[in-house]
């Protein structure tokens, strides 16, 4: 028990010693904090105080000689926020115009290739003389109940008739008389289908193939097959 108490006391006193500054350390803290030492301090401490005070003395002419150069460099190095703000609004229209132009070019190219959806292709056809939409782009309707007419092979006999659609080339009539075609699909009755006159061979019966209303009927292509494809 006695040993334990002694060791406790020893620990306590050593802890106090650790926390307490020695005279030298206390003086050092005063010096570091730029406090004046008393006259009772040894001469060596007072000498040290003078050295530290000199180190922290007033600015010399040499130290302040570069003020003009420093201010000039400061003004030159200042960041300029204004131009950065201007760039934002200016860049946006340029980017938008570039995007619109790119979209237009792509649209025209696709239109020329005839690969646009039918309504857009039609628009392109009217605006920039792009190929008219192909009837093949229409939704196919069942036509199995329609018997091919005698002119079924008529369009096949027309070599080079690339303009006509598959429907007209095969002479297969569409059973759907719904007027889904446009006005350019008027039967001209001359048997010379152009690229825009899709598959309009010579109408088998007057008034059908040459439908002046522009509404092709299911008998379109039922002609005699003397239509001439036109490249």
């Amino acid at each position, binding site marked *: 028990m006695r040993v334990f108490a002694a060791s406790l006391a020893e620990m306590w006193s050593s802890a106090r010693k650790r926390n307490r500054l020695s005279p*030298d*350390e206390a003086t*050092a803290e005063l*010096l*570091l*904090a*730029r406090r004046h030492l008393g006259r009772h301090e*040894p*001469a*060596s*401490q*007072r*000498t*040290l105080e*003078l*050295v*530290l*005070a*000199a*180190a*922290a*003395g*007033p*600015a*010399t*002419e*040499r*130290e*302040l000689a*570069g*003020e003009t150069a*420093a*201010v000039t*460099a*400061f*003004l030159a*190095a*200042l*960041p300029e926020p204004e131009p950065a703000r201007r760039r934002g609004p200016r860049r946006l229209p340029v980017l938008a115009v570039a995007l619109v132009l790119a979209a237009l070019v792509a649209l025209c190219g696709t239109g020329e290739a005839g690969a646009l959806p039918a309504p857009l292709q039609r628009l392109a056809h009217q605006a920039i003389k792009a190929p008219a939409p192909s009837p093949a782009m229409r939704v196919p309707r069942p036509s199995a109940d329609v018997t091919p007419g005698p002119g079924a092979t008529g369009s096949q006999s027309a070599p080079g008739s690339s303009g006509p659609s598959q429907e007209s080339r095969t002479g297969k009539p569409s059973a759907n008389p719904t007027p889904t075609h446009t006005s350019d699909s008027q039967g001209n009755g001359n048997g010379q289908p152009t690229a825009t006159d899709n598959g309009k061979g010579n109408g088998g019966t007057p008034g059908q193939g040459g439908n002046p209303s522009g509404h092709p009927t299911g008998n379109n292509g039922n002609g005699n097959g003397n239509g001439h494809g036109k490249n």
Partner: protein
Amino acid sequence: MLYGRFVLVGDFPEVLRRAAAGDASAFARLWRDTHPPLLRYLWVSAGDAAEDVAAEVWLEVARRIGSFRGGEHEFRGWLFTMARRKMIDRHRYEARRPVSPTGDGELLDHPAADDTVTAALEYISTETALALIATLPRDQAEIIVLRVVVGLDASAVAQIVGKSPGAVRVAAHRGLRTLRERVAGATVTSPGRGGVTL
């Protein structure tokens, strides 16, 4: 004006705001207040490269002063942290030790009695005092300058030099002890210009 004390205090926020807005006179005020201690710190720790490093530091301050937030105390801590990083970078690139402004042989003469030393030191110049401090190991020297010349406390210095406040305290005490032993047996022979009478 003696350094080691903050002089702008209440005016600092306004001076800082104006400097950040590009006011040359406000920047000049900051520069006049902070450049001498910066240069002294760099003389002790970077030797001949002090002025070059100081110029780099002020350029960096000019670029980043708009984003700085804090008081005068924090500003000094920020600035001296930058200075120390630039000094270390320079040391890495140049791979050489800093050169003291003057050598020990020029600074100190034969030992003399304490009273004589004190009498001679009454005319010690700032440069001579810094040269004396620069004879210490670099870490001790820079800690003493940061505490005495720049006026930072142990915690702020610890942040700058990357040590604990306790380690900073120990290094400062060791440095002062060594310094005291050196000046106790020496007399100063080169008062130089710009000295102060104490």
